[in-house]
């Protein structure tokens, strides 16, 4: 009896210590990832004069549970890259995340450019920041506009006109993929970006093909291109999966 009375408290103490340890471990597990982690399929037989995709359930399929990092996010998007060196690009798609506690979720566009002083810069903007975070499928376009500008559009509505690439008339490659800055983000395995297209020099929209995978991550994330020629997908589609 004495042993029992002694044993039970020890078990409880052990369990409590274990729970505290697990709790602190879980808290410590949230980490900012540098460099960022990617699952990408790349179309690289340009030039591309515009690019287009549909994001299936862009916001709904992305999750982020990191409240301790400065800038935790997960994106599902396309990158329109002007040079092979990857120094100039426009990106557009869906993001879910925070910045210092402020909500940073929704459709977004960004540009990586050299400004008028010759300084390199990266600007990222939430689209329609006053609106509720969107749900469901949406399409995104980067296309050439007037006077050397580039139009960024969501659901065929122009959201921004970018004039920071006056010498670039086409893209060298187009990336479609996921990006994250935190190991506390995830996505629904099987989520897709589909109906992938590009514009040729005559402004005709054609289906994208000839992709190569760049799954640069330690999270087990995989991007896989599916051509309509040998899969059940009706049009060019990238499928994202994880273990």
């Amino acid at each position, binding site marked *: 009896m004495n042993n029992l009375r002694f044993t039970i408290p020890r078990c409880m103490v052990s369990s409590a210590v274990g729970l505290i340890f697990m709790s602190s471990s879980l808290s410590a597990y949230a980490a*900012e990832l*540098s460099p*960022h982690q990617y699952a990408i399929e*790349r179309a*690289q037989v340009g030039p591309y004069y515009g690019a*287009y995709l549909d994001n299936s359930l862009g916001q709904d399929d992305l999750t982020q549970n990191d409240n301790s990092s*400065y*800038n935790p*996010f997960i994106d599902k998007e396309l*990158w329109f*890259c002007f040079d*092979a*060196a*990857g*120094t100039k690009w426009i990106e557009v798609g869906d993001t879910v995340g925070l*910045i*210092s*506690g*402020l*909500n*940073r979720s929704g459709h977004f566009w*960004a*540009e990586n450019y050299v*400004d008028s002083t010759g*300084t*390199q*810069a*990266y*600007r*990222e*903007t*939430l*689209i329609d*920041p*006053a609106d509720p975070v969107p749900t469901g499928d949406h399409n995104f*376009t980067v296309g050439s506009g007037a006077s050397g500008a580039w139009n960024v*559009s969501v659901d*065929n*509505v*122009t*959201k*921004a*006109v*970018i*004039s*920071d690439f006056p010498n670039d008339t086409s893209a060298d*490659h187009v*990336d479609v993929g996921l990006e994250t800055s935190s190991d506390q983000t995830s996505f629904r395995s099987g989520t897709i970006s589909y*109906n992938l*297209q590009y514009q040729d020099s005559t402004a005709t*929209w*054609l*289906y994208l*093909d000839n992709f190569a995978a*760049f799954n*640069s991550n330690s999270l087990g994330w995989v991007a896989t291109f599916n*051509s*309509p*020629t040998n899969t059940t997908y009706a*049009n060019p589609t990238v499928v994202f999966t994880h273990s």
Partner: protein
Amino acid sequence: MKNLLMKNLAKLSASLFALSIIPAGIAGALASDVKAPPHPPLRAGTFSAPGNSSLPSSQMVPQTTIVTSANATAAHVAGAVKSVRLTDYKSFLIASRSNAKDYTVAPDRQVYLVNISLPSGIESRGGKFGPNSEMLYAVDAQTGKFITSTVRGPRVGRGVHSR
């Protein structure tokens, strides 16, 4: 009769040859030449965050709230808050030297413009920047919602979008 048989065999061979190359022809075409359905014409966007320059500052989020958030941001990135000021969105575009016209935020929308120095650089959403960079960001002064940010400075290394 023999000639007729030979002709039919020749036609059959030609047909089989044509059938054998059709799949390859389709695959080649799908590789890069298949037209997608035409896209509808783009429509111009409208300001979902319209101008509000006539509203008094008393109707804006208190500046102290933005300063607290800016200090938290600076602490996370080992930076220092240089300034937080109530201004308009147009001033953010000038400060960030961006030639991108937004169709969702009006130029005269009131925003808090935050400037943070980054002596050690930063891993931004767009990749790594080296020492002596800076970050500018705009918060909607009326709603307190994040709108946009720019990081400027020397780049470090080759990003994932190089090939």
